[in-house]
Structure formats: structure tokens, C-alpha cells
């Protein structure tokens, strides 16, 4: 730079400190995990939303004459069924696309339920401390000691499983991460000056928590939200795989793997395709979550 005088230099706009938003955006552009995760998740969301347009066939329409056709790249496959057909002759690509809708729907809904429960408990424990904290910490410890896969399976089996029930079960089992993070984040800023100021102005506790405290711990909560969403999607697929999650003929990926399991020896693509889709979705969400954590708080990286 060729600047003549120091007075002149002071007026230069590029000497202003970059805004926090600009710093975050720059970090985001240079974080490969974040980029991969957000692109992957974005792509899957787009495909899921566009499933009615993209799907070449009805995902639950059976065609017993065209059972177990291989994908287009294998032997006798053709372009009519790009990813082949399953044991009932249903188009695999169409099922895969509609399955993405199911996974996302379940992941997001369960994440919202568990987020509400966990955040409420965690913030109350962190903010009020004392006995409230003692009781809530006890509840969190108890929840961590429960074998959740087993409990989810048992409850689903007794109730008779359905899509709504799966969402509720997952929502009520996966709130621990939210509670732990909300509690520790609240503890960190509970005595900060801006909260003290709000308190001395006579702001009621619920307003203070809602409008002053929550906006300041939301970054940490968003990171947990992504990780718990991935967790919920994995658990749903496991429940569906064992036959106690989403019920047929809905095209849940876990259910598709379960149905393909019987053809493991001769038609391995039946489990490979939905499994790979599940893996990509969960990995994208995890990378996005890890990336968000690095970007919002680089000093907290481990």
C-alpha cells in the first residue's frame, strides 16, 4: 500500500475492524468440514423436498413381475428403475427419495421436542442453582443411566409403533445433550453484568431467561441440535430396522435395510444403497455441527 500521510490513513475504510459476522463468515468459508456438511445436508433436503417431482414411480406401488431388479450399473438393470426394485417390485430410487423426507421429518421433530425439554431443564438448573440444580442434575444422571435403545424398543412394542410415536419416544429420550450444554452455558454467564443489570431493573425471571439469557447461549444449543438430530435419525433407523419404528409400507431407510437383509447374499445393493444414504445424511449433519462449533467458538476446539 502506498499511503502518503498518516492523517489520510486514518480515514481509510479498510482499517475498520471486520464485524463479528464477517469473521464468522470467513471462518465458515475456510472450514472444509462445515462446507461439506452444509452442502451435503442442503442437497439431501432439496432432494427430499423435490421427491414428488423427481421420483420416477410411486414409492409404495408394487409390481411383482419386476421384483428384485438390479441397479442400472449391474448386469440386467435398466433406466426405468435406476436403482433397481425391491422384493415387492417397488422402485428403489423413489423409495430412497421419500425415505429422505421421513428421516428429516423424524430427525427435526424429535430434535425440537428434545430441544424444548432439555433447554428448559438445563436453563432452570443453571439459572436458579441450589436445590433446583440438584434435582435436575439428578434427573439428567438418571436419564443417562437408562439403556435408551432397549426402553425405546419396549415402549414402541407395547404401544404399537407409529410414526408419531417414534418421534415422541425419541424426543423424550434424547434431551440429555441439550440439558447438559444449556446448564453449563447458563452457569458460565449467570453472573454476567448484563444479566445483573436486567435483574436490578426488576425484569421478571422468565423474561430475562427468554430475551437476555437464551440469545446468549443459542450458539452452543444449535451445535447440540445438529448432533442430536443426527442421533435421532440413527436411532429411528435402528428402531425401524428392528421392526419397531416406522411401519411398512412407508419407505424408512432403516426399514428398507431390514427388508433387504433377507437378500443379503445375492442382492447386497438392497442394503448398500439405503445404508449409504443414511451414512451420508448423518455424516453431513455431524460435520455441519462440528463445523458450527469450530466457527462459533474456535478456542473451544479439542
Amino acid at each position, binding site marked *: 500500500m502506498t499511503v502518503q500521510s498518516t492523517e489520510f490513513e486514518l480515514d481509510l475504510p479498510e482499517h475498520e475492524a471486520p464485524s463479528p459476522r464477517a469473521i464468522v463468515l470467513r471462518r465458515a468459508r475456510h472450514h472444509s*468440514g462445515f462446507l461439506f456438511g452444509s452442502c451435503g445436508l442442503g442437497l439431501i433436503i432439496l432432494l427430499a423436498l423435490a421427491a414428488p417431482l423427481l421420483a420416477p414411480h410411486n414409492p409404495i406401488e408394487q409390481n411383482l413381475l419386476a421384483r428384485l431388479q438390479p441397479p442400472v450399473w449391474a448386469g440386467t438393470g435398466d433406466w426405468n428403475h435406476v436403482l433397481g426394485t425391491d422384493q415387492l417390485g417397488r422402485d428403489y430410487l423413489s423409495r430412497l427419495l421419500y425415505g429422505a423426507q421421513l428421516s428429516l421429518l423424524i430427525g427435526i421433530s424429535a430434535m425440537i421436542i428434545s430441544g424444548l425439554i432439555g433447554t428448559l431443564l438445563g436453563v432452570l438448573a443453571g439459572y436458579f442453582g441450589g436445590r433446583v440444580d440438584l434435582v435436575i442434575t*439428578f434427573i439428567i*444422571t*438418571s436419564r*443417562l*443411566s*437408562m*439403556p*435408551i*435403545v*432397549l*426402553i425405546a*424398543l*419396549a*415402549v414402541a*412394542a*407395547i*404401544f*404399537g409403533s407409529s410414526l408419531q410415536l417414534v418421534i415422541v419416544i425419541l424426543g423424550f429420550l434424547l434431551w440429555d445433550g441439550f440439558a447438559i450444554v444449556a446448564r453449563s452455558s447458563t452457569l458460565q454467564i449467570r453472573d454476567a453484568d448484563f444479566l445483573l443489570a436486567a435483574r436490578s431493573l426488576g425484569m421478571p425471571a422468565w423474561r430475562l431467561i427468554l430475551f437476555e439469557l437464551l440469545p446468549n447461549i443459542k450458539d452452543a444449543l444449535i451445535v447440540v441440535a445438529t448432533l442430536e438430530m*443426527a442421533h435421532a435419525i*440413527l436411532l429411528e*433407523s*435402528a428402531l425401524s*430396522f*428392528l421392526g*419397531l419404528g416406522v411401519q411398512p409400507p412407508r419407505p424408512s431407510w*432403516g426399514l428398507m*435395510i431390514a427388508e433387504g*437383509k433377507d437378500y*443379503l*447374499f445375492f442382492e*447386497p445393493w438392497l*442394503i*448398500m444403497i439405503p*445404508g449409504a444414504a*443414511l*451414512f451420508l445424511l*448423518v*455424516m453431513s449433519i*455431524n*460435520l455441519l455441527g462440528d463445523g458450527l462449533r469450530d466457527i462459533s467458538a474456535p478456542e473451544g476446539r*479439542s
Partner: protein
Amino acid sequence: MHIFILKRIGLAILVALFVSFLSFLMLRAAGDPAIAIAGEGASEADIEYIRIRFGFDRPLIVQYGEWLAGALQGNFGTSTYFSTPVHELIAERLPVTLRLGAMSLLFAILLAMPLGILAAVHPNSIIDRLALFLSVLGQALPNFWFALVLIVILAVWWPLLPPSGNSTWQHFIMPTIVLGYYATPAIMRLTRSGMLEVLGSDYIRTARAKGLHPVQVLVKHAMRNAVLPVVSHSTVQFGYMLGGSVIIESIYALHGIGQLAWESISRADLPTVQAIILILSLIYVGLNLAGDLINAWLDPRIRVT
């Protein structure tokens, strides 16, 4: 120290009681067990008979109290499917699951600790990247799918291992890999961050400055402190793995407690499910307690809090 131990044990007992009550409540509130046992097409009289025969007609709290009193004496009631005492079923199956859990934990530690240490010694190197890649992979692989893929590769394409059953030690290899790999990311991350922290400390610099051999510094000085959190975390992972064994055991047809749980759920065998949930929680609570106590014994600073 004694007060600390007593406090932790008291807390563990409270948690165990609370968890047992909650799971009891959840299973009973979820539906009428008598209808589930009777099965489809049972008459009203049959259901009523089962209700009285198994005592489902009494208040919940009475049923819980009776069940707990029995459980404390090792009596978990009678399986509604096998008509044998539940504790006999569990005693028969538990060793398989514990063996699987121990092997998986060993596998996870043997894979994760060296990788974590190497990643910390050479940050941002190829090994570090590989470790990161493996841990991203481990967190996103659905374990039941990984189990099936391993069967396709190791039992179908190259028939090296038996696909299911539990008669020989070869039957345990695939389940061990699947279950152990699930615990690998957490242990690796802990080892890496612990090592990074220790390697930056003054006493390591002193040891290096004295001219000690780098391997000696790493093994004798650094590792001792870095593995502390890993030890206590491993106990927690062991508990998780026992929980995860439900899925893995049912895929590989290993006759452990997980498969028993899964079968009992499909047969609506409530006393057995109840007992397994309680035992898994107890094991988890016990391991957590052990982890806390080990940590407190190794690191006196923790005892104060």
C-alpha cells in the same frame, strides 16, 4: 475421602432406584400387559385370568414395591414366555454379553489410544487426518448397517468368518469390531486432547531438556497423565456398549442378554424386559461409580468437590 465415597455411593443408589421406578412406570403405563400376553384373539375372560394370575389388577405402586423387594433378593419374577425364573435366564445369557462388551472395549482401546497418541504427537499430519477421518466415520456409521456390511464382506464375498451364532471365538470377531468401533471416536478424541494438553506442559519440557529418549518421555511421563480421563470414560463406554448389544446380538444371533431382551420384547415378556433394563442400568451406574472413584483415587484434586 470416606465422605466422598459415601456420597457417591448414596447418589448411585438413589439413581438406580429412580431409574428402576421410571422404567417400571413406563412399561406399565405403555399399555395393558395382560392384553399383550394374551395375544390377538384372546377372550375377555382369558385376559381377566391373566390379569389376576400375574397380579396386574393391583395398584401400580404395590406391584412396583413387590417387584423391587423381589429384585433386591435376586428374584425378578417368572418369565411369562418360558415360565422359568427370570434370574436363571439372565444368569445363562449375561456372560456372553459381558464377554462381548469386554472384547469390544479392548478392541476400541487398542485402536483408539495409539491413534490418539500419534495424532497428538504429530498434529495436522497424515496420521492426525486419518484419526479424524476414522472418528467422523465411526460417528456416522449406523451400527446395524455396518454389521450387515461386514457380513457381506467377511462372510459372503470372502468366507473367512461365520455370519452368525456363538459357538466359537470366531463368532465374536465381527460383533466385537462393530461394537468396539462405535466406542472408538470418543476414546480417540479424549486421548488426543489429553495428550496435547500434557505434551504442552512444563514437566514434559523439562524431561525433554534432560535429554531423555523421546519414547521414554512419551510413555513414562506423558501417557500416565493423559490416559486418566480415558480410564474413567472407558467405564461409561462399556455401559453404552452393553446397551448397544441389543441390536448387534440380534443381528449376529449371539445368545446374550441383548438378544434375550429383543426376543422378550417381541414376546411381550414384561418381567424379563424389566429385569434386563434394571440390570443394564445397574451395571451402568456401577461402572460410573467405579469410574468416579478411580478418578478420585488417581487425582486427589477431584475429592474436594
